[in-house]
């Protein structure tokens, strides 16, 4: 579905990522973990052409319109209601207003926001805004979903719940996902494959691990699986090798 080969990314003269190789197969959930500031986000920006790679190639088995990007923050259009925000992508794809609004309402309902369609973003809590942002992306039924630390700003309880909801969807729809995160537990819980990024500048992929935990998974129970503990330790060691503990927690 997605293949990133020998990609380097630079901001001006500063090379942040060098010779990145990673593959996400159709129907698989891949994570890219690395310390904050290692340039993980830039990979997703390059895939969605918000940024041009310095060198290397990015092959995508789907048009860009089939790629959903769930950003780290939940910036919604403040002058549009939750429903209008969710309907936006559908409207851009040429769906008539009534149909787009109906689809938007359905997705809001699926994410537990029934009856919130007429609220403006400032009338919603952080968790609710995040759900609207998820609905906005999922409503387009993307073939490939890119996520940039989407739950970092949420408190633990809301976070666990939303993660579970997303996991259910991904497993049911066999969605292809690339998640970028510094949260090792989140990466293991959700992924089939985990890529580990070394400390920047000039960060590169230093390891690849398969997560041998059967699906469907439950967020809370997955943590009790022995594979989870073993892999967590491995990842932790790999990251500690290349960075200080502080920046992992940051």
């Amino acid at each position, binding site marked *: 579905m997605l293949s990133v080969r020998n990609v380097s990314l630079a901001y001006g003269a500063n090379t942040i990522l060098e010779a990145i190789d990673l593959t996400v197969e159709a129907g698989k959930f891949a994570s890219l973990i690395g310390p904050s500031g290692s340039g993980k986000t830039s990979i997703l920006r390059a895939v969605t052409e*918000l940024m041009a790679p310095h060198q290397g190639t990015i092959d995508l088995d789907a048009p*860009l319109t089939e790629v959903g990007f769930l950003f780290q923050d939940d*910036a919604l259009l403040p002058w*549009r209601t939750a429903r209008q925000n969710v309907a*936006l992508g559908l409207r851009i*794809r040429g769906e008539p207003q009534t149909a787009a609004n109906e689809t938007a309402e359905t997705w809001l309902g699926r994410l537990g926001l029934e009856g919130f369609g007429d609220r403006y973003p*400032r009338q919603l809590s952080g968790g609710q805004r995040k759900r609207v942002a998820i609905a906005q992306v999922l409503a387009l039924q993307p073939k490939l979903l890119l996520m940039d630390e989407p739950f970092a700003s949420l408190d633990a309880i809301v976070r666990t719940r939303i993660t579970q909801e997303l996991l259910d969807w991904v497993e049911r729809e066999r969605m292809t996902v690339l998640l970028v995160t510094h949260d090792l537990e989140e990466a293991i819980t959700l992924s089939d494959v985990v890529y580990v990024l070394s400390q920047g500048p000039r960060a590169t992929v230093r390891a690849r691990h398969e997560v041998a935990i059967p699906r469907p998974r439950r967020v809370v129970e997955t943590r009790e699986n022995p594979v989870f503990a073993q892999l967590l330790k491995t990842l932790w060691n790999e990251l500690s090798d290349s960075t200080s503990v502080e920046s992992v927690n940051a």
Partner: protein
Amino acid sequence: MTVSLNRPAVRRAAAFAFLLLLWEGLSRLGVIDPFYLPPPTRVAAVLVTLFADGEIWPHLQATFTAALLGLIAGLVLGIVLGFAAALIPILAELLEPVMILLNAIPRVILAPLFVIWLGIDLASKVALALILVAVLIFFAVYSGIKEVDQRLVERVRTLGGGRAVLIREVYVPSVTTWVLGSLKVAVGFAFTGAVVGEFVASSRGLGYLLQFAQSTYNAALTLALIFLIMAFVLVLFAASEWLERWLLHWRYA
């Protein structure tokens, strides 16, 4: 309804009434010379006469027409130039220094030039109000677009939105908030332009009347006109606020 001193509006009205009473008393007792500061009752009487004999209407009409035309034309010109400069780099390169210069000088010094170019009638007043408003709005729009929330831009782009969608969904609404933020200042500027234009050369308008009152040392008429202009500007402020609440309802919802 009970009137309580706990509310700011009531306290302000009370303070205002007290000052008027003090002024009236001091003026009547001869502590302050009524030649320089006639008591409020006399100022009010002048106002009533102005309206009663209908003398004020053509002047009000002249000033209002100039201010409103200047305001509307200034808003349109400022918005168009601001958008154009933000979207077309070469235009920004040419416009920015001119606008910065116009912004730096007290633009009312252009009044005599407009009189020479456009005559002593309406056109020169509209032009002055327009230039005062347009420069203000230009910067509101231009910097508004440059400082648009880039996260929203990227979000709309990854949802598949092109330039047209970006302008409609992100730029126009952001710029609306910026322009509305400057609207009250613009209203004040439009009246400044109209009245100052009338000061410089005119045969009608509140500025013309003010000029006349000053040259005849008529303090009561001068004060009456000042209060009149204040009252009208306050009404337009209220209208701007209503417009803001209507257009930015998502902020107040």
